[in-house]
């Protein structure tokens, strides 16, 4: 099972194409927040951008916290979601250590990444990538810009 990572998020220009794509294609919404990935600039725009995404925990604390089984463990990490049994209690979001679950303020519906990969192609700078979950047989380390630079400097 593949999972979403943002190995090259240092390149991010904050265009929100990824979150808009997730909202549009996965959740059928027009939104930059009701999405599995959200882009923030923690210290104002001059500090650059970070991506809030699910780290695909295994076991997943959010699934453990969910009282209804709406969130359950996904193979390879992260959660499977059954929206119709969610009671909008917010326990999942409180349990997530990295603030990856967005509670929509008007409805209290939780939004999380499903690791489907549909946002990846909408990033103009290839910040995002679907990789094999760590620990699985053919898991490879994603190529970050830092890793590439190291290779280049060894080449000469």
């Amino acid at each position, binding site marked *: 099972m593949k999972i979403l990572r943002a190995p090259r998020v240092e390149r991010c*220009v*904050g*265009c*929100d*194409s990824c979150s*808009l794509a997730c*909202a*549009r*294609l996965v959740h*059928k*919404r*027009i*939104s*930059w*927040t*009701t999405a599995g990935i*959200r882009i*923030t600039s923690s*210290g*104002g*725009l*001059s500090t*650059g951008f970070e991506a809030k995404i699910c780290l695909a925990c295994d076991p997943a604390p959010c699934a453990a916290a969910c009282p209804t089984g709406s969130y359950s463990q996904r193979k390879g990490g992260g959660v499977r979601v059954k929206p119709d049994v969610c009671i909008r209690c917010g326990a999942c979001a409180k349990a997530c250590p990295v603030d990856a679950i967005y*509670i*929509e*303020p*008007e409805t209290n519906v939780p939004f999380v990444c499903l690791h489907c990969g549909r946002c990846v192609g*909408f990033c*103009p*700078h290839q910040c995002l990538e679907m990789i094999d979950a760590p620990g699985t047989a053919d898991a490879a380390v994603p190529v970050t810009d830092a890793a590439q630079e190291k290779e280049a400097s060894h080449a000469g």
Partner: protein
Amino acid sequence: MPAEPFRVLMVDLTRGRGEYINFGDKNEHLGGSGLAAALFAAYADVSAPALAPEQPLIFAIGPLTGCYPLMSKTVCAFKSPYNEQYAESHAGGRLALSLRFAGIDALVIRGRSPVLSALAVGIRRLDFVDVHFLRGFDVFTTGKQLRKLHRSGAGHRSTLRIGPAGENQVAYACINVDTYRHFGRLGSGAVMGAKNLKAIVIDGGKSLPAPAGKDYPDVFKAIYDQVVDSGMMKKYHDLGTPENLLALNELSALPWKNLQSTKEAAIENVSGEAFARDLLLRKAACAGCPVGCIHVGLLREKYAANNDYLYRQVSYDYEPLFADGTMLGITSASGILAVMDEIERQGVDCMSAGVALAWATEAAQKGAIGLAETIVPLAFDDVAGYREAVRHLGNRTNEFYRLLGQGTMVAAAQYKGEDYACVLGQEMSGYATGEVFYISQAMGVRHSHLDSGGYSYDQKHTDKDAVKAIDFLVADEADRVALTSMVSCLFARNVYTPETLGRALSAMGLSGMAENLGKAARNIQKLRWKNKIDCGFKPREVKIPKRFYEVTNWKGQADPAYLEELKTYYASRIEALVSA
């Protein structure tokens, strides 16, 4: 189908109250430019001064905001304290999407707050916050303080703020949007200052249903692919608009030293290539735009002897590099960023401020003004002097800077320097391409190089056919009005052809609007002109200062007879538009 109205938030700062109203008809006013012009017609008092508290400050988005790539701009409309006329200014950043996801088609601010305030709006908030302690704070410090004040609130947000220049009502004070973008021209910042409003914070936490079916995601994907595969990415993302510096210099169309020349060898040090090579730190994008044209430069400054450095980040484009760079004769890239940094802090429009200081420098050279006026000696390429002068401009330190802050021509009239004031309706944009551009800026509804493609017309036509040229400007303006009513970034004008716009609207379930687009755009074009004429604009009285005839431009020397012909015919077209 019954007319669908816009949802407009009317804020009254005097009473500290806001009210959501239904306004207008979406199929007629579209949004953006159209909605702003209609709100101005409904709520402004054209005979009262621009800075009277009751005048509206309008921010409007459009039907496609946040729905497609590069639909990322907001239109700001107001009565300009610079020329007392209807004005429209555009900015990107995160403002457009924040308004969309706050559920606001337009925000209209009237009245004057009893104390210096920040206004916070969002899906569950409407706050008037006393920020009297921010009085006199520069734009950056204000931003830092605001982030501390407004930590809460779901979703992403946008922050608008003014600096000392806005508080002091400099006629070309700007509104800073999310650090790197601006409502620059014609003094929206002074209007905020006159309202005792230091900042506006908009929380966008709403999510809207996407239209059902495959049409919307398919049209989106097609447009997205076209944007990233077209030359647009290269043109606006790579070197960005600063690639123009070298090219325009080569064509003798780059204004240098108050337009005393249009081509200089020193270009090597201040070209887009030099900036990218030596100072480019990173790029950023407006929300919803994959192009990412915002170029942020790193300004490193040694402030003490022992290798003590501080650093600043300054965003740069072609226009500020021309106005605060070549126009001031500055021959080092970091010197230009240093001047721009001070301009950002004070919150003055970078183009107007640069061109105003260029005029002041020549006036000082000619002895028309002295140190009693300028306080610091002004000389081309003197970065430290310009930084100091910008502070005086923002703070309106003496009568000279007060006049210069009303506009270059106001100071020029007082000190007898009109002939060399580079003013075309407002301080010039950076295109010494020829007669058609000069007229298009001097007479354009926004006095902006973006009103219509006059600068590119000059480069494609050497004939002197005034009718053909003006017909092009008027038709091109109507196409641009359609885009700025959506509200698209004008960099996307080659992607959003009328057909593509129609498809994009239909996929959003707005086929009524798609069908009416051309007609509505022409009506909006007319309404904008009507607003401007109602405020007293007299197209036949437009003057082109002598400097524009003296300097060599891309086409050679400007031809006075051709300019006169262009002006007369354009004036008659404008009059016909308004009375039709």
